[in-house]
């Protein structure tokens, strides 16, 4: 039993909704629907090309460019001087860059593949797992408005056993929608004044302006986030740094401080110069840790030493686990960031 199993027992006996409540909710919805006039105009969006060839190329490259280091560092290790130097150099590059305009939409285009699983049966109690390739393009404004376009490819199997189990189970959905294109925002294009708000909360906007750019202060913020209310370890701090570099288009000052925080983390190792899946040369640093419920894994960040921008990241499972029919080391997720900029408008 793990903590998720224990958590699932909590409230598992919550009663089914009262038929009276369900009827009331349905009636409320009906009244609401009748009162609402179609004030929002749906704007048909051009469908982006699937670019299957690029997805296929990226998929084919998974096994070839997996960035796997030479060994497993013990948790709590000291900072690697070579990694710290590389990260400090990236920080210096960022710090020397002019402040960018933060007005507009943070725009990121990426390609990747991520682990996805469905519940297993008696023969596969740990589930059936595959990598699902995803192309993602997102525009996010400070008010949470924006647009998200995602294209998902066919599952990539770790081995024939998983694929056979999946087919025997009736080919349950593993990837979600093949294509989605959604606009978010408090003021929908074409909406009349007072029109209903779109999806509450809209896109998640990381307010980078609220973060300190002073390294020590930023380290305190990262500690607090990494700890989730308790004590943090350096692997968790490393993942917070990655969260703040990913799809955020931070200011050069902030990016510099993020790299300096990473340089001080014990266990960060320098992989060196690598070529990412888009064919770009970058510097790779990695951290090894044991996220709960996954297994020993290595999280690698690849950045451009000339611009300091995050180019790619990758997660590699390093040990044999009982839930995945694959021999380690094996890539269980990656993202390649092709475009990271600020745009004035959304196409």
């Amino acid at each position, binding site marked *: 039993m793990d*903590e998720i199993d224990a958590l*699932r027992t*909590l409230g598992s006996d919550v009663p089914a909704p009262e038929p009276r409540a369900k009827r009331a909710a349905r009636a409320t919805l009906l009244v609401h629907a009748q009162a609402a006039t179609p004030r*929002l105009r749906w704007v048909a969006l051009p469908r982006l090309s699937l670019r299957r060839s690029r997805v296929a190329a990226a998929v084919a490259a998974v096994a070839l460019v997996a960035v796997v280091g030479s060994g497993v560092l013990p948790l709590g290790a000291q900072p690697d001087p070579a990694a710290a130097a590389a990260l400090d150099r990236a920080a210096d590059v960022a710090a020397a860059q002019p402040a960018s305009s933060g007005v507009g939409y943070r725009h990121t285009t990426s390609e*990747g593949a991520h682990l996805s699983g469905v519940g297993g049966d008696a023969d596969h109690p740990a589930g059936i797992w595959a990598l*699902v390739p995803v192309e993602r393009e997102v525009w996010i404004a400070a008010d949470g408005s924006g647009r998200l376009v995602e294209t998902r490819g066919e599952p990539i199997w770790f081995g024939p056993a998983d694929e056979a189990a999946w087919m025997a189970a009736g080919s349950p959905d593993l990837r*979600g929608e093949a294509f989605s294109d959604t606009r978010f925002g408090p003021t929908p294009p074409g909406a009349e004044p007072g029109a*209903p708000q779109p999806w509450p909360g809209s896109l998640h906007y990381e307010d980078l302006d609220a973060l300190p750019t002073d390294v020590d202060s930023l380290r305190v913020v990262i500690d607090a986030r990494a700890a*989730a209310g308790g004590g943090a370890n350096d692997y968790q701090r490393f*993942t917070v740094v990655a969260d703040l570099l990913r799809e955020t288009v931070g200011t050069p000052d902030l990016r510099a401080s993020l790299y300096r925080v990473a340089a001080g983390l014990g266990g960060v190792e320098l992989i060196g110069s690598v070529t990412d899946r888009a064919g770009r040369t970058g510097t790779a640093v990695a951290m090894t840790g044991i996220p709960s419920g996954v297994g020993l894994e290595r999280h690698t960040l690849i950045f451009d030493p000339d611009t300091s921008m995050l180019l790619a990241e990758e997660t590699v499972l390093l040990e044999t686990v009982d839930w995945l029919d694959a021999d380690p080391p094996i890539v269980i997720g990656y993202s390649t960031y092709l475009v990271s900029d600020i745009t004035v408008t959304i196409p």
Partner: protein
Amino acid sequence: MFATVFDRHYDAVHRYLARRVGPDLADDLAAETFTEAFDVRLRFDTERPDARPWLFGIATNLLRHHYRNEARRLRAYARLDRPAAIADDFGRIEARVDAERAGPAIAAAVARLSADERDVLLLLAWADLRYEQIAVALRIPIGTVRSRLNRARSRLRELIGPSGQYTGVDTLTEACDTDG
């Protein structure tokens, strides 16, 4: 068409909300989830294969205004002393009893998580969403889902400890006296 979405998903959305804030408030929030969803339906193709991430995202967003209620709910879980359930074989009984013994400690630990991490964790455990569905529900990159979930699970393990007992410095009740 939208009635189909309601009929298909109301029970699951209500159940998720009831686990988080109790059945009474869940009645209101489940109804609100579907009226909010109706308002934005034109931005969502209701014939998509799965509306659950979309609906659970709206429900989770509504919960953000009710963390005091959630804290009370978690406090109730933390005080829970339930009998072992009857299962259909001995192994499952044993596993279930283990899980239920850890329940109160888990509830206290969940209360100590940040709102962001709690949302990701409970969408996984109580809404049965997969990582990519959670990413859709919360509109965050899947890598961020993973890192939040990893931190939440590590924190739970740290707070519960090998004994299965809550090991935080505060009491179970204090742990649940949080607004997230």
